[in-house]
């Protein structure tokens, strides 16, 4: 389907009032780079969509599903776009045409376990037909391009939504659809999700998700923890480190992983199925908004040069969708003309750092994120200048988590302990940082778990069942999402900067032995094996 966009010549500023996109500029030729200035369209909280906006958004999803039912290989369809996240290789008929009639799509979406990366599992793929392999995706996780990859994916997905029915032939026009976000650090408008996603008759619904209402009056993910990560963490800690560095970032581990595993469940528990659930897109859009807040706070220049800027983002997108300004595909696999009009990747991450340049921004709605001043106040209360860790009955980490219901666990499945001797001298930027680490070995089938880490004096009995103990000595927590298609022998590491905490202990506790205990629980009753884990330890990392 050819899509003609008309662009306004005026630029809207982010944070301004929510103004619907009114377009008057000349059309552009699909697949070409448009003029430099784009109208900035604002992405809203999904609960703030007007009835008309919601109707258009739902219709866009419905149309994308219908496009896939006509041909599962159509790159503007729901299935192909899910494959962009879920699959690094799929079998494609040489004809590039395979309909999915009747209840085929319904059956696919009803399953939380069916492997959709193998089309033969749900579509008619004649054994005798000529086939080849294409690479729709796959998502990047556990890397310093995790956030950038998903930002690019959402950019193109928004274009696909708009292109699904811009003329309004089958329902409301989708020309002006913008991808909303779900702020999951606030109480949901529905029982567990935004109301729009709990209507069984809506194309946004997915029956495989966990359905039970929230047991607590609090949201699951703490908005204070999220804000702390945004305002106070450098890129490596927040978004992930380069190859050979400390690994995945805290937005991925502390916030994203738990939500996939333990909150949403169903297809969202599996990275090879997650993007088949429409809630994936509004969920990740809030993570993208969080990335935007980080960039507002620190500046895009604070993202270190190198892979975080330059590693091309793998995905095969439809070539007719509006590409980002500056898009180019680098020195990549040559295109196969028989495969139609497509891109071999989504360009470089740096293209997407300036969202307004690419025509989108977030609404800047008041109170969507906790202000920095409130986090500063919390830090002043629980980790004030001159503090000594352990003296305050509530550690900073406990305080940050307390605004969500996902707090430290009282009954872990396993515990491991190590020791650490408080150094004689405080650490400075010149002599290094203290990093708390523990690891899990590679396992045959990657499993998900949550972990809380405690630091306490050697003479203090470990008593994780006690609220007082947990509140006082919690220093870190994390969540690991076991990935399908993952290399089974890749281990994982928690790598937490505890310099401030260690330095607080130097004046009066230098030379003392302290205990570190990590408490681990399998995700949603899943098993964990104590033999897979190392004991936690603290190491000093020299500065570069």
């Amino acid at each position, binding site marked *: 389907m050819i899509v003609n966009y008309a662009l306004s010549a005026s630029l809207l500023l982010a944070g301004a009032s929510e103004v619907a996109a009114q377009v008057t500029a000349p059309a552009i030729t699909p697949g070409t780079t448009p003029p430099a200035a784009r109208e900035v369209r604002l992405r809203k909280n999904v609960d703030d969509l007007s009835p008309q906006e919601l109707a258009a958004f739902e219709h866009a999803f419905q149309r994308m599903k219908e496009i896939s039912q006509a041909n599962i290989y159509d790159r503007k369809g729901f299935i192909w776009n899910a494959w962009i996240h879920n699959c*690094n290789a799929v079998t494609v008929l040489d004809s590039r045409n395979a309909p999915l009639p009747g209840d085929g799509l319904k059956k696919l979406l009803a399953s939380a376990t069916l492997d959709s990366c193998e089309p033969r599992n749900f579509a008619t793929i004649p054994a005798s037909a000529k086939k080849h392999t294409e690479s729709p995706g796959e998502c990047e996780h556990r890397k310093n391009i995790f956030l950038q990859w998903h930002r690019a994916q959402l950019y193109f997905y928004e274009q696909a939504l708009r292109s699904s029915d811009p003329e309004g032939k089958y329902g409301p026009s989708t020309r002006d659809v913008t991808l909303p976000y779900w702020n999951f650090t606030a109480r949901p408008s529905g029982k567990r999700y935004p109301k729009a996603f709990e209507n069984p008759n809506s194309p946004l619904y997915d029956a495989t998700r966990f359905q039970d209402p929230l047991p607590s009056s609090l949201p699951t993910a703490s908005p204070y923890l999220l804000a702390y990560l945004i305002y106070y963490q450098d890129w490596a800690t927040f978004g992930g480190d380069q*190859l*050979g560095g400390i690994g995945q970032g805290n937005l991925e581990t502390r916030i994203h992983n738990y939500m996939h595993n333990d909150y949403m469940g169903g297809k969202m528990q599996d990275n090879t199925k997650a993007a088949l659930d429409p809630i994936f897109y509004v969920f990740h859009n809030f993570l993208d908004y969080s990335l935007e807040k980080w960039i507002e706070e620190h500046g895009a220049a604070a993202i270190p040069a190198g892979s975080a800027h330059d590693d091309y983002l793998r995905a095969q997108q439809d070539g007719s969708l509006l590409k980002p300004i500056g898009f180019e595909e680098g*020195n990549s696999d040559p295109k196969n003309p028989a495969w139609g009009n497509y891109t071999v990747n989504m360009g470089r991450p740096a293209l997407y750092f300036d969202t307004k340049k690419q025509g989108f921004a977030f609404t800047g709605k008041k109170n969507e994120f906790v202000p920095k001043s409130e986090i500063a106040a919390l830090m002043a209360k629980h980790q004030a200048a001159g503090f000594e860790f352990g003296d305050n009955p509530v550690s900073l980490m406990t305080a940050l988590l307390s605004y969500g219901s996902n707090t430290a666990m009282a009954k872990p499945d396993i515990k491991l302990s190590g020791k650490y001797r408080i150094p004689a001298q405080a650490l400075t930027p010149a002599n290094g940082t203290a990093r708390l680490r523990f690891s899990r070995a*590679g396992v045959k089938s990657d499993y998900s778990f949550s972990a809380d880490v405690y630091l306490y004096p050697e003479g203090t009995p470990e008593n994780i069942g006690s609220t007082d103990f947990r509140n006082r000595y919690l220093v870190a927590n994390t969540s690991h999402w076991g990935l399908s298609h993952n290399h*089974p022998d890749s281990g994982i590491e928690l790598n937490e900067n505890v310099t401030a905490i260690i330095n607080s202990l130097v004046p009066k506790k230098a030379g003392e032995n302290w205990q570190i205990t990590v408490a681990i629980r399998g995700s949603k009753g899943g098993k964990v094996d104590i033999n897979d884990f*190392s004991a936690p330890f603290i190491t000093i990392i020299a500065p570069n």
Partner: protein
Amino acid sequence: MTTPSFKTDIIPIFAKYVDDMKDIPVASSSGTRRLQLDDYECVKSFAQIIQFSIHGYDYLPRTNPPQLREGARPLPKPGGKPGEYVTYVAHPMPDNPGGWAVELVRLPQEAIDLYDAWVAAGMPA
């Protein structure tokens, strides 16, 4: 020791893994390509990623702090100080879907050394 060449020395190292990786798209700062382990330009393009991956089993799991496997020669950390090595790799290679003991899966040390030497020599064809 003669300078290793891709054709003579590197192709044999990866020969049995070519089929496994040929449909997997990999990203680098030059572009995205399906990893063709028997193609000089492709391996050269992803030389660093490959180097990190084959060093991914250098350290023993569950060791505190990380302990080097006997006989392994670790990879110096890019931009790091003397004595700093890469101890964590997200995706070690070769892949091990069967969950075999690492000693059975890891490339022989001689092969890792040869690859490192090839990279250090400027990756001659």
